[in-house]
């Protein structure tokens, strides 16, 4: 509109523009916080830096029109928001929302400040006060943004989003620096402490949380686990249709064969991983990589061409949605002999000590089925063992025995190993699974953000007619059948789109129509209370329809005479006289004159 500031020798930003610095500081501070966290700095550092930059940009550059400086700053903030909004750090979506709100406020403020530099119309109504205008505009725009975002964002991302992407080529440093949790291995040591940093490993688009399983181990050797059938690297799986790779289910894993489909899309954030993480059990993997399958149903990238940063792959898993009742009823079916041989009586596994077996029997003495026995063991472990990442490393030997009877303090690998060993000692097929816990769901994007510290180990128990079912004595994870579908705010809002839309429309009507309804009601009441006001309103309405509005300086009689000429209806002259009498004379208009005027006003047809 007009120029931002009037030129002056002082070279200061015009006072009306100074308030713009506040929302601009909030906007850039918010996005600066996200950017700082993305860069590994405390978010408050970026927030302060962004806020200071905004304040300086708005207030300390008098040679640049404030409007232009502010818009450029907001543009930079927007670019930063685009760059860092997908950062899968801590759930800082509130900062993103704050950025959005502050950006909108800044635009309103700067445009309003610009308008305030324009001289006011003499005798005119001054422009609306700042805060009522802001509340009205902000409310409307927020509603529109929410509705549009709910309507389009999930649709756009679902239809156009990448489900397969090669990502960056991992460098030697990426490969060397990858933690053990991201590498395939036929062995898992129980005597080394895991690396548990806050670095994000990957994010997962999925409807509900699950363990993101990488590998399983079936042979316990006291101080480590191994996989009896690790598979061969050259045993690669063929791509059936473009990027689609079908994965055969493991033998006797009923859930993997006929369970419900569960789709997940993994966005790799770390520099390198060669494990194809997936909810149990993967049946289809969409990727451009060559994969090979292990006999336990897990998948890994063939050779050393693991996923690099930015890689995206999608997995369709199958598992039976189970409940406690179903698991309790599973004992009615017999467990296949090969499963018992591999996961209970494995000759390669370290023999269970009599003390461990006695402990297992004593814990499960009152349980009548496999599920209750496993729950009893979990309960006992919860009451008698402690979780700590600072637990002392177990000496070589039987780590589980040392943990159960000596230290009683350990981390997930020792706790899960104990559950597996205890279960096996009473004839329950069990194996150790490693991978990652579900991670924290980002409330804006709905993705599960998985970090290095989410690396996890848990037990999988075999149930006849169901297959492998995960049990986590360390952390509570709902059973698949009890899991609730969840999502981002956007997804939740979209799910409730119809009631939300109705609410928005009603709210909008209330906001906009209420003042007008109140004003109309007041006018109606005034007309009812005063014959002259009502009659004058009717006369003016007729005049407007005839294209002749009443001038402020015209008396009703003058106006009526003008209308009489325009419409060719001399009766209006008398109506005007009656109105003047009613309005201005001491005695008012007679009832007869009023009745005549009403009759004329009713009959005129402009």
């Amino acid at each position: 509109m007009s120029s931002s500031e009037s030129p002056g020798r002082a070279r200061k930003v015009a006072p009306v523009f100074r308030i713009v610095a506040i929302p601009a500081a909030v906007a850039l501070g918010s996005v600066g916080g996200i950017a700082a966290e993305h860069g590994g700095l405390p978010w408050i550092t970026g927030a302060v830096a962004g806020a200071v930059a905004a304040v300086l940009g708005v207030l300390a550059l008098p040679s640049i029109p404030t409007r232009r400086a502010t818009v450029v700053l907001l543009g930079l903030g927007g670019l930063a928001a685009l760059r860092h909004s997908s950062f899968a750090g801590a759930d800082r979506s509130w900062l993103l929302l704050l950025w959005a709100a502050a950006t909108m406020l800044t635009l309103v403020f700067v445009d309003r400040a610009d308008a305030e530099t324009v001289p006011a119309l003499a005798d005119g109504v001054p422009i609306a006060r700042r805060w009522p205008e802001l509340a009205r505009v902000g409310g409307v725009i927020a509603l529109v943004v929410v509705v549009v975002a709910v309507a389009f964002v999930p649709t756009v991302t679902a239809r156009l989003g990448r489900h397969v992407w090669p990502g960056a080529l991992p460098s030697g440093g990426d490969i060397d620096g990858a933690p053990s949790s991201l590498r395939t291995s036929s062995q898992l040591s129980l005597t080394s402490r895991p690396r548990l940093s806050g670095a994000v490993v990957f994010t997962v688009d999925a409807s509900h949380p699950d363990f993101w399983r990488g590998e399983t181990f079936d042979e316990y050797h006291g101080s480590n686990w191994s996989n009896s059938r690790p598979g061969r690297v050259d045993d690669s799986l063929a791509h059936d249709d473009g990027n689609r790779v079908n994965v055969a289910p493991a033998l006797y894993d009923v859930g993997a064969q006929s369970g419900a489909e569960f789709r997940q899309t993994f966005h790799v954030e770390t520099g390198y991983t060669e494990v194809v993480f997936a909810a149990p059990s993967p049946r289809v993997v969409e990727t451009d990589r060559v994969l090979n399958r292990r006999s336990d149903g897990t998948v890994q990238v063939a050779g050393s061409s693991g996923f690099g940063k930015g890689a995206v792959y999608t997995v369709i898993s199958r598992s039976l949605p189970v409940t406690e009742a179903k698991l309790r009823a599973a004992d009615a079916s017999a467990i296949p002999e090969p499963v018992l041989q591999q996961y209970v009586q494995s000759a390669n596994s370290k023999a269970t000590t009599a003390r461990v077996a006695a402990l297992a029997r004593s814990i499960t003495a009152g349980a009548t089925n496999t599920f209750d026995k496993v729950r009893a063991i979990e309960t006992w472990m919860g009451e008698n063992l402690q979780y700590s990442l600072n637990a002392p490393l177990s000496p070589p030997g039987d780590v589980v025995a040392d943990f159960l009877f000596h230290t009683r303090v350990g981390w997930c690998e020792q706790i899960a190993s104990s559950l597996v060993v205890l279960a096996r000692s009473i004839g329950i097929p069990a194996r150790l699974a490693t991978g990652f816990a579900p991670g924290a769901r980002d409330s804006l994007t709905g993705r599960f953000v998985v970090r290095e510290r989410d690396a996890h180990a848990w037990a999988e128990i075999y149930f006849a007619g169901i297959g492998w079912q995960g049990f986590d004595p360390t952390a509570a994870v709902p059973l698949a059948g009890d899991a609730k579908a969840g999502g981002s705010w956007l997804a939740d809002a979209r799910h409730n789109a119809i009631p939300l839309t109705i609410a928005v429309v009603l709210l909008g009507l209330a906001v906009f129509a209420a003042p007008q309804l109140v004003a109309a009601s007041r006018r109606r009441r005034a007309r009812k209370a005063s014959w002259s006001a009502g009659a004058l309103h009717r006369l003016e309405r007729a005049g407007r329809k005839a294209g002749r509005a009443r001038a402020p300086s015209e008396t009703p009689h003058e106006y009526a005479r003008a209308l009489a000429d325009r419409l060719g209806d001399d009766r209006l002259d008398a109506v005007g006289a009656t109105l003047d009498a009613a309005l201005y004379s001491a005695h008012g208009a007679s009832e007869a004159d009023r009745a005549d005027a009403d009759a004329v006003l009713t009959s005129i047809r402009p």
Partner: protein
Amino acid sequence: MSLTPADRTTTTGRGPGAALRGSGGGHQGPGDLTLTSIVLFTLGAYGVAAGAATGQEAVVAVGVFAFTLFVVGIVWPIASLARLGVSAIAPTDATVGDSIELRITITGRASRVDVRALDPPATWRSCAAPTDGRLPHSAARRGVFRSVRIQLRTSAPLGVFVRTRTVRVALPAPILVAPRPNVARAILQPIPDERVSSASPLLVRGGGDTVRAVRPYAPGDAARLVHWPTSARRGEIVVREHEPPPALGIALVVDLRGPTPEAAASLAMGIGTATLAAGGVVWCGTFEVDQPVGEMVSDARALGRRLARASSGPPPEPPADWPAEVVHA
């Protein structure tokens, strides 16, 4: 004075508005996208495209947010201005170059709107609608104006798009803008027409040089009028009685058929004003709308109105035996 054909300026015009109130019809003007719109569009397009390609909902959300601000920022000002109506009241007489004041009324609702008069463009004034107010305007051209152009603009609330709307407010009664008078000498020549003498209140009676008769002195007669020879001869004081002086003035014939009609009108206004100020009478002949008009003018305002209405066309012949001054464009 030679004049050449002039355009007809008694028109609808772009210029100062006249009295009375007209409802705003008028055409919609264009708007301007601002730097803000470019920034928001770029962020929106990039965010939606990049977010959609990568499946990153947060990026799409940022893009959708920017796009929404972009669209709302365009639609809002358009909708705001579309609902506004304008009417105006103005003085009835003006002279070219004068600053006049339009009394405008804006109906409808808008939290922020700027308004100005066009032809020529005046300074923007801010207000909220509905409102009444006084809008300065300058009378730039001679003529009769039955409408005035008012321009509204707003970029509220986001400054994304500056919507401008021009409204031509119809005026039931015209405003007459007289030409600004050039400096000119009065032309006072005897006018033979007797009806002019009776029509002109400005003529000075009893001030002629020709003595018509003498009469006895009456109290109040000036001493300089005493005719001493006759008084001596008759033995009583008598005073001279003069013939009334002839009416002085000019028949001003304004022919605007030429390349410089405004200069001619200003010259005619200057001559007429000076003549009237000197006590002369002025007969003005012009061409108006579709016919020549020749009439006596009583004062400068009447002359200004005549010249405001004057347009290109053959003026009437001056009255017989009148001294005429023909002003050509």
